[in-house]
């Protein structure tokens, strides 16, 4: 399947610091990946990793500092005309994290679903029909009853389904789901994840599932990208990456997840600096926290290197590039 939405060398910088200190936060640094129809790609990382920024870049809430966003082969990042932007928006939509904040408290469910339809040209009775169809798709029944409700009359899970229905309204081919379950109760999350899986199968939508929870990523996604301090540090098929993680950060994430099924090992966690992505110096951004760090790691920024079937990692030690392979093994561990 060919890529529908492709991101190449995407970067986003924000100015930080007070009036005197003018630093630049490299929130997203040279990120590349592709979304294909009928597949869910997970974008995993913690706060500050850049995953949310990528999500917002893809729905044009931010403009990239550099790099390209290719939809069906055409770079859309520089589009300015309303017609082009609107066309993109009919193809790429977003599900937001906060079920309480993502719906307008003063408007009914019907309004939330009807507006996108009207903006993209649907009229009259067609709008109502589609609204009911959408509500049924996400499992909110009876549809006439739900359509007249206000957000405060719905539970968190129901609101999130409305948010999903809204994203589906115009029939997008790509949906960016920005931590769609993190603010929901535990027993409700699975229902939403199942819905995403079903939508992917039924409509062939390409999903980008942004999350900090690896377990849910495994459940719903086919591929995974792990992010740290604005960079992709590992990517590959989700099972492969989680069974045999290459990057030390991925390993740290995996061992941090509460898992009552197996016994838990105490893990050594070193503290890193919160500003690894501000005016980053050359070298690996994870070096301060890494148990495998060698001298090379602090001097040269590792590249994303393929080190397994379809799996790549950004680490001198576990996925050394050909140029630095000898350097790594020559140095004693720092």
């Amino acid at each position, binding site marked *: 399947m060919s890529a529908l939405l492709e991101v190449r060398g995407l970067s986003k910088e924000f100015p930080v610091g007070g009036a005197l200190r003018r630093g630049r936060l490299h929130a997203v640094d040279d990120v590349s990946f592709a979304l294909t129809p009928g597949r869910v790609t997970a974008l995993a990382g*913690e*706060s500050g990793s850049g995953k949310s920024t990528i999500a917002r870049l893809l729905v044009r809430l931010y403009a990239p500092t550099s790099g390209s966003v290719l939809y069906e082969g055409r770079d859309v990042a520089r589009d300015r005309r309303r017609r082009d932007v609107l066309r993109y928006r009919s193809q790429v939509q977003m599900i937001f994290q906060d079920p309480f904040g993502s719906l307008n408290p003063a408007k009914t469910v019907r309004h939330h679903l009807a507006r996108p339809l009207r903006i993209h040209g649907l009229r009259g009775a067609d709008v109502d029909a589609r609204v009911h169809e959408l509500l049924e798709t996400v499992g909110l029944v009876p549809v006439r009853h739900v359509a007249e409700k206000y957000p405060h009359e719905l*539970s*968190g*899970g*129901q609101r999130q389904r409305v948010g999903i229905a809204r994203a589906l309204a115009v029939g997008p081919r790509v949906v960016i789901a920005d931590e769609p379950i993190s603010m929901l*109760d*535990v*027993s*409700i*999350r*699975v*229902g939403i*994840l*199942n819905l995403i*899986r079903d939508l992917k199968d039924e409509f062939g939508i390409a999903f980008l599932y942004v999350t*900090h*929870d*690896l*377990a*849910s990523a*495994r*459940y719903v996604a086919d591929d995974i990208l792990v992010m740290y301090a604005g960079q992709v540090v590992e990517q590959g098929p989700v099972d492969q990456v*989680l*069974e045999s993680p290459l990057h030390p950060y991925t390993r*740290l*994430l*995996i*061992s*941090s*997840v*509460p*898992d*009552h*099924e*197996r*016994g*838990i*090992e*105490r*893990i050594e*966690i070193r503290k890193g600096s*919160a500003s690894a992505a501000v005016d980053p110096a050359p070298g690996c951004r994870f070096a301060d926290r890494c148990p495998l760090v060698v001298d090379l790691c602090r001097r040269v920024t590792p590249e994303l290197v393929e080190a397994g079937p379809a799996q790549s990692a950004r680490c001198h030690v576990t996925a050394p590039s050909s140029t630095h392979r000898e350097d790594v093994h020559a140095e004693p561990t720092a």
Partner: protein
Amino acid sequence: MTAALSSPEVDGAATGRPLVEIERLTVDYVTRSRSIRAVDGVSLAIRRGEILGLAGESGCGKSTLANAVMQILRPPAAMTGGRVLFAGEDVALKSREELRKFRWRNVSMVFQSAMNALNPVMRVGDQFVDMMRAHERISKSRALAKGGELLELVGMDPRRLRAYPHELSGGMRQRVIIAMALALRPELVVMDEPTTALDVVVQREILQQVGDLQRELDFAVLFITHDLSLLLELAHRVAIMYAGEIVESGPSARLRDEPRHPYTVGLLQSFPPLHGSIERLAGIPGSPPDLSAPPSGCRFHPRCPHCRTEDAVLYARQTTELPVLREVAAGHEVACHLAEVNEA
């Protein structure tokens, strides 16, 4: 070699009378139009030095319960029945002065959002000083020194006393809160969703820290969260709350291996596994009930896979009679008609 975050066994006999005894506690939210029962006849005990986990989803009443223990219920919430005993004394009978000493000296609380507890315009050190001087006669320099010791206790650099809250990361702020909660060496620390807003790695750090501290200082913990998997690692015992009632409680290992209440089973099945095969998870259909008009009989029955009209006799009980907590094994109690039937 695996070790849980805390030692799994707490010798009940050695610790004698429980530190906290909650007896048939009832808390209502009373408004002009209606009254909602948020906590309905809950009985629970917390032993000295044990970590008791309280799990449940939003609206189940767990935070209300914690507030009742600390006696910080605010209108329209009011305690309308039962009592809370701390070291044998009824907390509701304490005078204002006694309550002031009680809070923080005997029991302290850690909230979910550290920003709720930390004053954004004061340095951390000054807040320590304020807090300590409110409870004992102590000089500012002595209080600051103690603050430094406490920060070290929670794994932070004591120089951070000079920082403002916004200069610290979320995880660090939460550690500060924990340090403040431990300042007067309380016997019980109530933690209400302390790690929910934090990243998973930071969460792991904090939990390890709490486990270490608990072992070292031997205080009891009431750990409230919606994330049951956390509790199964950290807590000695776990109680599951649903719609204002305790539906199951027992040692965490037992609840993990042999959960008896369908809600507990459903909760455990709501966590996608990180390893092993992936089957489609069912979760729990429906949503938590409207507490102003809860379902008749067993409150979980509309969502329960074992409540079927085919079993007419059982169904009749499930829809009319409220199940009662009964012991099914040592220290393991369940409130479920089906469990009762199976035991018989």
